[in-house]
């Protein structure tokens, strides 16, 4: 089957292993991804921080391009792009005056009819129902499923999963043989867009996420957002400095975990591109939390 696809800038650059794993898993399940023609950046945090109309016009152009190519349904693997596209579609639909203004800025036909899927929705809709056909080996690890902000909030617009304790990613991990851990930081913020301009803040916010995942004895953190990933993975030295401990828990995209479970090799899934090496322990071996962190968490409890 054919499915529209908006990769976004991160997947073309620093998060190319996310793209590689999305494409590999889709290929395995006979999903032919058709890129939105001549797509542009969604504007991300920068646009809505600086200018409202710009933050709507950029995603609207993407949706207009998808419409003109006849793509009724598109998957948007990047949680940030997904959020911007959904919010734009919602605001354009519910604020007619604003919509007219944005359409005038855009100078293109825009209907707002495209159905937008995030990666978990793609997995629920097209992968899990056919999992048995390709199941190769269990992803037998204790996993902290990290949703972050943009997949689940604002709930009134996205209408996806639950805002405080989402379960869809946990369910996907369970289906491929993993054990999702119950933890407190699954929807906390990693600091996202501040990665470059306020690395100290990101180290703190992301540090708390890593700390809690380890406290709940997770062996791997699973994400569905390039920004969560880069903060948890590429920024790990800053995170470790904040925590005062050398943490080594790897961070995998949900599509990489599924890819392993359906027998796609590590290189195709881009596991070698992570900064924190992915050495998943032998089955049933659980990595203990560093002693220093046990004490700090114990004090808070």
């Amino acid at each position, binding site marked *: 089957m054919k499915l529209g696809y908006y990769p976004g800038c991160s997947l073309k650059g620093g998060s190319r292993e996310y793209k590689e794993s999305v494409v590999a898993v889709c290929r395995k399940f006979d999903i032919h991804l058709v890129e939105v023609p001549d797509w542009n950046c969604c504007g991300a945090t920068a646009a809505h921080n600086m200018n409202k109309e*710009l933050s709507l016009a950029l995603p609207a152009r993407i949706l207009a391009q998808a419409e003109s190519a006849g793509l009724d349904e598109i998957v948007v693997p990047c949680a940030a792009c997904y959020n911007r596209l959904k919010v734009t579609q919602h605001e354009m639909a519910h604020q007619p005056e604003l919509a007219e203004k944005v359409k005038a800025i855009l100078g293109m036909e825009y209907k707002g009819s495209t159905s937008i899927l995030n990666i978990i929705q793609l997995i629920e809709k097209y992968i899990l129902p056919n999992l048995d056909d390709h199941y190769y080996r269990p992803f037998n690890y204790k996993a902290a499923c990290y949703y972050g902000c943009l997949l689940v909030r*604002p709930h009134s617009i996205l209408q996806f999963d639950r805002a405080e304790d989402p379960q869809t990613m946990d369910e996907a991990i369970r289906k491929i043989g993993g054990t999702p851990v119950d933890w407190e930081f699954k929807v906390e913020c990693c600091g996202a867009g501040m990665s470059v301009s*306020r690395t100290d803040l990101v180290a703190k916010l992301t540090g708390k996420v890593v700390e809690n995942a380890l406290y709940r004895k997770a062996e791997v953190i699973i994400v569905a957002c390039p920004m969560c990933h880069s903060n948890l993975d590429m920024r790990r030295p800053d995170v470790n400095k904040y925590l005062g401990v050398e943490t080594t828990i790897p961070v995998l995209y949900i599509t990489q975990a599924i890819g392993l479970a359906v027998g796609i090799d590590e290189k195709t899934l881009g596991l070698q591109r992570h900064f924190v090496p992915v050495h998943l322990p032998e089955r049933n071996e659980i990595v203990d939390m560093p002693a220093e962190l046990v004490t700090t968490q114990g004090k808070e409890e």
Partner: protein
Amino acid sequence: MSSVQHQVQKKGSLMEEILDSREISVQKCYQCGKCSAGCPVAEDMDYPPSVIMRMVQTEDKAMEEAALRSMTIWLCVTCETCAARCPMEIDIPGVMDYLRQRSYEKGMANPKANHIISFHKAFLDSIDYTGRLYELGLIVDYKMRSFQLQQDVDLAPGMIARGKLGFFPELIKGRKNMTDIFRKTLHKKGGLK
């Protein structure tokens, strides 16, 4: 039954502007403090989110200016936790977006937010020129603007080794379209409300 007729006089306050242009009612806030309690960056802010809401509610010029000059509005990461927990369902991140935009347009942005704003501007310029984000260009541009020349240079070799740093920007065909969008929004003369 009788209804009291109020003579509504426009004060030209931020609260009115936010209601008129964004359809967000700051007035509905009754100071429960849930937004501040759940905000992951509240402890780094000069005023927690609920205090910013109160400052806007006062419709007092000095209070409004303090909100516009605050560091809070730039530290807000738009994680939407506050909005998810607000009992009055107020779009608090939308208020922050509005205050940021006004603060920037009025030249009132907190000097300590310079790095954050430099990053946003470098990011948007990259999109304006090429249509897509060019990460290497963004970092170089940010360094030039913020004078953070040494920052993250140790990351570059690792990124190159992992094939994560492209050396050439991707140019989209609709660049004229992009330039038009920027000209009608961010680069519009006189700024936007």
